[in-house]
């Protein structure tokens, strides 16, 4: 079992809500890092206040943390990295979540975009955008998604995480497996999947679930975050059980490892991180959406706490090596 030392909540969006940032009221979801010489840029998705009909939208922005002390905020985005999509487009009501990677002197972002539907609350697709200013602002490649729906993946396609291993791009993502009906409301069940690409734009999908179910036949998996260390690929992800997660508030962090990125052995116990006992802790009810990264010889995990990141994210430091 891995051992994490929790460093506590390091970013709460409510501390920064105000006239200057009308797009930011609460939530800082799905953290993803981009490392600079002096700081670590953490992308997250946030929401302005709900509209008069109680509907929300989501934006992606970033906060820069001091590289020498990640608990210190040194800069916060002045505006979202992308405007919402045009009318009728897949990302008209939100960009959430976003994952980034450096490609030569650009930064490429892979993001889930969502729009509202009628019989289900949302429909999600994965889009791509490029930045020429070190990841401050991005321009879409085009108005549509780079991963279209297919006969094999007919429902939501979301949660992209972009990686580069062995001269190939890997996109880990989740695909809807079924829309369930729980207490009269539609709930999505997601499974973790993968696609590969030589150029980061044209993708070949594996069309297989990577991670076997362990919690429930209709469990929902998210945030497939992969890192290579000590000769193996390690995946931290999160998940929940659609039939009761609204009551239990349970979202958990799981773990799997692989030699080849295709065959994964699940071992959730090894993840080594769970909710805090302290009833006042930001992660007392849930831990979710992990992102693991290495920095200056240490391994860190950013993750969401209660209410799926409504009050921001926290940081943990691995004790020992990721092996």
């Amino acid at each position, binding site marked *: 079992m891995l051992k994490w030392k929790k460093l506590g909540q390091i970013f709460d969006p409510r501390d920064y809500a105000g006239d200057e940032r009308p797009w930011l009221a609460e939530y800082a979801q799905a953290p993803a890092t981009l490392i600079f010489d002096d700081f670590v840029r953490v992308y997250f998705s946030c929401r302005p206040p709900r509209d008069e009909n109680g509907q929300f939208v989501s934006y992606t922005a970033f906060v820069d943390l001091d590289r020498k002390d990640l608990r210190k905020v040194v800069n916060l985005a002045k505006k979202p990295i992308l405007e919402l999509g045009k009318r009728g487009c897949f990302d008209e009501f939100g960009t959430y979540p976003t994952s980034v990677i450096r490609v030569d002197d650009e930064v490429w972002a892979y993001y889930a975009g969502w729009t509202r539907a009628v019989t289900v609350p949302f429909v999600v697709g994965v889009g791509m955008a490029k930045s020429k200013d070190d990841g401050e602002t991005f321009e879409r490649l085009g108005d549509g998604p780079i991963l279209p729906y297919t*006969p094999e993946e007919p429902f939501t396609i979301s949660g992209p995480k972009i990686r580069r291993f062995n001269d190939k791009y890997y996109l880990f993502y989740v695909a809807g497996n079924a829309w369930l009906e729980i207490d009269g409301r539609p709930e999505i069940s997601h499974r973790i999947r993968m696609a590969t690409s030589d150029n980061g734009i044209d993708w070949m999908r594996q069309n297989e679930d990577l991670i076997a179910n362990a919690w429930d036949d209709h469990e929902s998996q998210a945030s497939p975050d992969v890192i290579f260390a000590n000769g193996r690929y390690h995946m931290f992800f999160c998940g929940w059980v659609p039939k009761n997660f609204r009551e239990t508030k349970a979202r958990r962090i799981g773990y799997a490892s692989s030699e080849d990125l295709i065959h994964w052995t699940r071992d959730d116990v090894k993840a080594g991180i769970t909710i805090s006992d302290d009833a006042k802790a930001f992660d007392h009810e849930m831990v979710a959406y992990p992102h693991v990264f290495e920095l200056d010889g240490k391994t860190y995990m950013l993750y969401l706490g209660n209410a799926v990141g409504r009050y921001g994210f926290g940081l943990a430091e691995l004790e020992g090596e990721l092996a």
Partner: protein
Amino acid sequence: MRWQKLGQIFRFIDSPFASRFVSHAQSPQALVLDDRIRVYFSTRLEDKPGQFVSHVQYVDYDFNFKQVLGYSDHEVIALGTRGTFDEHGIFPLSPTPVGDKVYGYTNGIARRVSVAVETGVGFAVSDDNGQTFTKYGAGPLLSATTYEPFLVGDPFVREFDGAFHMYYLYGKKWSEATDEHAPERVYKIGHAVSPDGIAWTKENKSIIPDSLNEDECQALPTVIEIDGKYHMYFCYRSMVGFRDGSGQAYRIGYAYSDDLVTWTRDDAVAGIELSDTGWDSEMMCYPNIFACHDSIYLLYNGNNFGRDGFGVAKLING
């Protein structure tokens, strides 16, 4: 091209479908079988007040369209389950025979909130001469991609020169809502190729130039080869005012090509115009061109987008 109109051959209200469906027989598409011409069309059920879903049915004719030989009285192809691309209707189904099977390419419809609908191209296969189709997965074969961001639909597929060619439409824009109208769509005709009819490569561009203006909507392409030359019929209209006559209602357009890729538009050559009076005097839309033995026919809808049925014309001079 010169056409002889054979008139409205299908009247919804006089058909057995009138007892099972509400209205419409849209986008007639022919499948020529050994002993009959099977014509698929989409007809409507009302699922909520003022909201409709399209279902595919068919009617069988003799080779001269003189006699009805039969009707579908069963589900030809199922609509999608909750959350899928074709949950709220299939309109149209475009059949093409491949070996001893019939491939059916569909335009699937699902409702949205900020715009009326989103669409995608579905695929289904029939092993029983087109009586029923089994879907190939729950998702679409083609749907929105980077440069075709919405409303991919209206597929028409044929094998030409050893490859499968799909002509289809894709969305270019949704207009903002105004006091007069809800968001309106603009769509253009695109082209994709495939070695097997399943894995497609989109050309990602509009292949038919506009004749009205850049907001022209082009729909339902249908292509036939005659003596080594390819002819495309389609329908087009203006973005707004196409329902009430204040703009351009659907008309039949025409283009030709030698290579299936580069098309020259020349609507004047279409050879088929509105009638002075009657069922196709205000609008003509959703053409389907096909050969049957030595004749070439054009099925199409008339006024009100095919609310009352469809008609056919016969080519008398290519």
